[in-house]
Each structure stands twice: as C-alpha cells, then as structure tokens.
C-alpha cells in the first residue's frame, strides 16, 4: 500500500473521548478478567516443563560420550 497517497494522519489521536477504545469480541471479553490467571498458568507450565527437561537430561544424559 502506498501510504503517501492516503489521507493522513494514519493515527488519529483524539484524546480520550475521541476514537473508540479497542473492542474485544465475546471470547476475548470472557477471557479478559482471567488474563493474569492465564498468564500465571502459562508461567507455571513453562517452569514445570523446564524442570522436567532438566530432569530428563540429567537422567537420560549420555555420560560415556567423548
């Protein structure tokens, strides 16, 4: 897209009463109150995976290899 041909500004900064604030759809709205919890679950899963991987490497690592 050639923006030089577009009517600008691309960003309309109309102060807080101007543009519509980002509209979330139904699924996003349902998830919104739980964002921090979901982020916490992802972090927990990430840490558990990391611990499992370290354990796997330690247990199944090849110590005879040169």
């Amino acid at each position, binding site marked *: *897209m050639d*923006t*030089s041909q577009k*009517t*600008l*500004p*691309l*960003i*309309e*900064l*109309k*102060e*807080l009463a*101007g*543009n*519509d*604030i*980002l509209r*979330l*759809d*139904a*699924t*996003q709205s349902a*998830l*919104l109150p739980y*964002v921090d919890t*979901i*982020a916490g679950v*992802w*972090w927990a*899963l*990430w840490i558990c*995976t*990391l611990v499992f*991987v370290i354990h*796997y*490497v*330690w247990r*199944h*690592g*090849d*110590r005879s*290899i*040169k």
Partner: protein
Amino acid sequence: MNFLRNIEQVYRRILSIREIEENTTLQWLFGGLLFYFFVTFQQWMGSSAITVERATNAVCWPYFQECGRLYFLHYLPSGYSHTTFYMGMFGIMLSIVYLMWRGHWARAHMLLLLLFLWKAFVGYVLSYTILGMYDTYHLVLTASLLFLPHKEYFTKIIFVTLYFVSATIKFYPSWILGTYFSSLQSGLPLFPDALTPLLTNSVIFEQVVGCWFLLSKHKIAQRLSLVYFTIFHLYSGTLVLYNYPAASLLPLLILFGPMYRYQRPPLSWKSAAGWIVVVALFLLQIPSLKHDVDTVRMTTANNRYGMWMFDSNHQCVMAVRYFYAPEITLTKSSSETLAGSTCTTRECVVKKDVYEENGQWVREERVESAISWQRCDPYQHWRALKNLCSTDIPRIAMTFDHSINGEPFYRIIDESDACSLEYKAFGKNTWIKAPPEAPPVGLPLKNIYRY
C-alpha cells in the same frame, strides 16, 4: 607448508570439523545457514545504513554509543567500497559452495566463520536496528555449527530452546487474548476473528510444551510436532515474508525432518560449552524481565537482549521541536507548508512547520508510526534526535506517545531538552515513563500491518 598444515590440524581439532565431515545433516545445515547469509547480505548491500555517509545519524547499541566512528564503507555515489565489499562477500559465499562440493570442510568452515564474524559485528557493535529476530536465530545456530562440539545435538536443542524462550514474551494479552491481531485493521491472516484467542494460545502451548517433542524418540510425537511448526512457519510468512521462514524453516526441516535421529543428551566435559550456550539463551531473557511486564512493553527497556518478536502491536506519535541558535535564520520552504505527509516504510511525517518564537527559529515535526511491526522503541527515536544536537540546534524538545494493542496512548517522554539527556544501558532511565506515571493522552485507530 607444514606450519599451515599444523594450523589446519589444530583448527580442525578445536572446532570439531570432523563432525561436519562425517555427518550429512550437518552438511545440509551448513548449506542452509550459508543460504541465509546470502539473504542477509543481499539486503545489506542495498542499504546505506552502515556506511560513512550515515555515520553521524547512526543508532548505536546503548552499550556502545560511538559505533558510527567505526563505519568505513562508502555508499554510492560517494564511493564504491560498500558494493565492492559485499561483492567480496559474494565471492566468499561462492568459494564456500565450491569447497563444500569438493569436501574441503575445514576451509569452508574458515570462510563461513568470516561471514559469521562480519554479521555479528555489524549486528551487535555497529547497529542497534539492523538485525531482526530471525537474524538472532541464524547467528545462534551458525555459532553452534561453527564452534560447539556435539554439533548436531546442540544445534537441535538450541533451536528448540529458542522456541521455548520465545514463549515467555507471549504470556501477555497480546497473545492470551489475541489483541495483537484484533487491534489490526486486517486481523489475523486467513482465519475468522473468533478463532484468534484459540490460535494464539495454541502457539503458546506449542512453544512451551510441543517444541520439546521435536527431540523425541517417539516417531509419531516427533512428526506431529514437526508438522505443526512447519505449518506455523509457512503461515507466519503471510505476515513476516520470507526472512523468518528462510532463517527457521530450513534448519527445522534439516534437523528434525527426514534425517532426524534421536540422540541422548551428551553429558561430558566436552559438552560443557554447548550447555553454557543453552543456559545463556535463558539468561539473555533476564534483562527485559527486570521490570514488570507492562513497563517493559511500554518503555521497551532492555527488550533487545532476548527474544522480542511479535510481543505487542505498537503505535507511536513523536512531536519534536528543534530550537535553532539565535544567529540562525530559517525560511519557510514549500515542503514545510505542504499539506499531507511524507512516509518512509516505518513512519510518516504528518506535520511540518517553521516559525519564530521568542527571537529564536523553531522547526516543528510530528512523526507517526505507520506499521504495527515498528517497535516504537523510545531509545531508538531519542538517539536519532540526539545525533542532530549541535551548536546550530542546541535544544530539541520532544514528546513520545506510545499505544500497545489498541489501548490508549501514554505520553512516555515529555522533555524540553532531549540533547541534555543520557541513556543508561542497563539502569533505569527515569525520563522514559510508564503508566501510571505516564499520562494517557489519546486513543488510537486500528493499526496497520504492511510493508
């Protein structure tokens, strides 16, 4: 001759060249990584970014802010050294292909090392902005192939670790709710908007858990993971074009495709270097985790040290006033009074004006980001302004407003004299603020993804 042969023997032994000579997977990987050097240098050859002509407005890394002094190539029409240099690189790449074909892997390795050193030097010393995240993938994998013992195993686990570490930047509404995509005019490519959170969370799951199955000895699990990431990279190309797929899909298919074999993790002193690199990939993520996640997204503090690709959808507006020295008189040119705007790939100048204020000439500009993948890094914008400070322009006032994922713009910089500011490479820069200290100043329209 004996002396040179001895050097080659030492080189072969220290850098485990025999592994490449005996391993078809590594030989294919060698070719795949070489191909991406070609992709990189053909882009750099057409850019004046790292040339003497641009040295005075170089945006350097915060840890080495004098990088412009090291620029030595001249860009056309000032000179031929830039194009000559990159044709030299082309010659090296051709030579590597010939040496690979002849099976002279030690010599091919030496030449690939030269390409690697130049790319790393440019990316981590000469320029803050020239590398994309895909270049980090490329450099890390190339380093593994060049330097590490147990090359095949460590290149595989490093590749998987890059996915795993990348997942951490997605534990944020951008990906949990999918607001990165829903705040774009064009939305998520090819899928209905209602599926956005499902798909973005599936990427998180695959980068946290699924990626490790690439290393599995269970064939079906390994193949399913391979298929997922192959489709993921092909799909991502609809947004990121050829760069990221070229840097990641080739190694993915070479390391985990038809030639894949399960290998037990090596645990010996010789493997220590490989494990140190793996740990370093985790440690590099720490600087950006020093602050709370909202602050990091807004200020982008230390963001470039770890993985950061697609963390958030950014929009920014920068208003600048250049105050000229009293002895300088400006005249209003046609460009300053012209309605409309001037756009580069990344941003548009939407307002220009020149006027006299208190006996001093002032030039005013308003610059807006024009694309969602513009990072809106306040350091980068401030650094470009700071380069303009001089006896002719002793003072530059700036405001910088930043919006993430369609949320309000916050005024994160509001300074009357950008020339007097300094940026700390690792400490807190109090002049770059985050909410609630940074006040909200407006609401954005939906962002644009384009090239």
